[in-house]
């Protein structure tokens, strides 16, 4: 009888002790030194630094530390979920952990979250949200944020295109030694956006970006990029005059989507003008030829460059518009969205050219850069 009472006493003391200690064990803050040591250990296992790679072990450590609200661990854990390393890929979890870490002030996580919006990984692509997050990271002093915000501003994605603002972002990043920012600055000065070509400055930034680990420099020397840019700059004045005189830009407003089969059939020759990101300046012009034929009301458009057939596009007439065909039968690099227009418009007022057919791309086209405008003249 006595023994049972003693046993019960011991058990109740143990229960009270455990009730007291378990919450402490679960919710106690891990000392900063321990967090650092655990993060280092996880990092070693994740990347195999002087040990076997063990992503599962790394995942477990990050997961434990994320439970203790360590933003660095949350960021790494989210990266593992995003890349499917040590755990099954799960964009929702990745997004959640990036967001949590970002809210706790981790600017790396903010950049990674922005990247998800930028690339449309696991979430709907949203350049505006990506820009806001990059901007937030940039303001927190993260050079990757400067690059992201600068890049989107440079190309006018999710924010109004503005070279001056983009260059401000890149300059901040470059001062912190970010090779991508330096590379973009080099591009800006070499191409001469805003008519400010400065080869010396461009080369200087290329050197800097190489010094900070940018890996594309040998491609620039291999393909003589700077020489071709010099040659382009010589032609620029004429092109710029064309745009200023409105010979090209006015035509953009004349689009009509009323082309008929008989209008389109035949061979068309003309040029592709590639605009820069601001849409104000033509960077490149290229001669192209299109051969359009019809079979059972399906249009077959053959695209030639230098008399070489580059690709075929197929479309059907829906009355008011031409719809690109994406059936397996026709699926050969079909553009996602395109329009064909026809109008009687005298381009050079000489009456020699009466018809033009501009094709304007939306967002993805394999053969044209994002700001391209195609002007094709019917060959009589």
């Amino acid at each position: 009888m006595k023994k049972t009472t003693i046993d019960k006493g011991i058990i109740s003391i143990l229960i009270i002790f455990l009730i007291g200690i378990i919450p402490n064990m679960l919710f106690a803050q891990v000392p900063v030194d321990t967090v650092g040591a655990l993060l280092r250990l996880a990092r070693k296992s994740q990347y195999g630094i002087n040990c076997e790679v063990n992503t599962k072990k790394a995942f477990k450590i990050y997961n434990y530390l994320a439970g203790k609200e360590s933003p660095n661990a949350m960021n790494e854990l989210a990266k593992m979920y995003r890349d499917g390393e040590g755990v099954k890929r799960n964009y929702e979890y990745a997004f959640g952990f990036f967001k949590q870490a970002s809210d706790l002030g981790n600017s790396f996580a903010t950049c990674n979250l922005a990247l998800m919006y930028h690339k449309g990984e696991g979430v709907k692509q949203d350049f505006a949200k990506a820009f806001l997050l990059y901007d937030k990271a940039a303001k927190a002093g993260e050079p990757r944020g400067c690059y992201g915000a600068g890049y989107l501003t440079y190309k006018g994605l999710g924010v109004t295109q503005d070279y001056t603002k983009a260059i401000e972002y890149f300059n901040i990043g470059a001062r912190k030694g970010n090779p991508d920012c330096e590379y973009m600055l080099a591009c800006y000065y070499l191409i001469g956006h805003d008519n400010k070509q400065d080869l010396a400055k461009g080369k200087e930034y290329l050197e800097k970006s190489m010094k900070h680990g940018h890996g594309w420099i040998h491609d620039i020397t291999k393909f003589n990029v700077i020489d071709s840019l010099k040659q382009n700059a010589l032609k620029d004045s004429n092109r710029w005059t064309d745009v200023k005189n409105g010979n090209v830009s006015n035509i953009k407003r004349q689009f009509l989507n009323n082309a008929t089969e008989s209008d389109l059939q035949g061979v068309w020759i003309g040029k592709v003008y590639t605009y820069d990101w601001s849409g104000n300046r033509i960077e490149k012009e290229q001669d192209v030829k299109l051969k359009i034929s019809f079979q059972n009301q399906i249009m077959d458009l053959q695209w030639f460059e230098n008399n070489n057939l580059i690709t075929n596009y197929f479309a059907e007439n829906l009355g008011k518009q031409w719809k690109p065909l994406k059936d397996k039968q026709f699926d050969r690099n079909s553009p996602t969205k395109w329009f064909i227009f026809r109008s009687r418009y005298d381009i050079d007022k000489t009456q020699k050219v009466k018809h033009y057919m501009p094709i304007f791309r939306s967002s993805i086209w394999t053969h044209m850069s994002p700001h391209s405008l195609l002007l094709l003249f019917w060959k009589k």
Partner: protein
Amino acid sequence: MIDSIIYHIQDPNIAAQMSYDANKKCHEGVMNLLSDTQKAKYIRVISTPEINAKADAKIQILKETNKYSEEELNSMKIEIFEYLMLEKVVYSRDKYKVMQQKDNIRKLKQFEPKSLKESNTREKVKAQGKVNRGNINW
């Protein structure tokens, strides 16, 4: 010692295969015996001269640019040496697990020092014949 097993083999292909298998077995035996730390130490000791020479070659390319002081070059050499040694550990440890080796090297590339990246780029540009007295002919 391993080569002595193929002494009497006439067909070179069979001899090569036997030699490879024996080397693999020996290597795996050694690696299974050692712990991670011991493996790293062992590989570091036997590979130091080789990695030193590699690091020197990388530094020489940077030296030709005349843009770095001796102090900077010394610190760069240390970081390049340490990184190349990390790679060497993977190459030696996973010598016979090719896919794993490639995957692990890819992971390590994230820690590649900037100086090594610069040296590699300059090496490629030099191979294109675009370097004159350490300067790039853009």
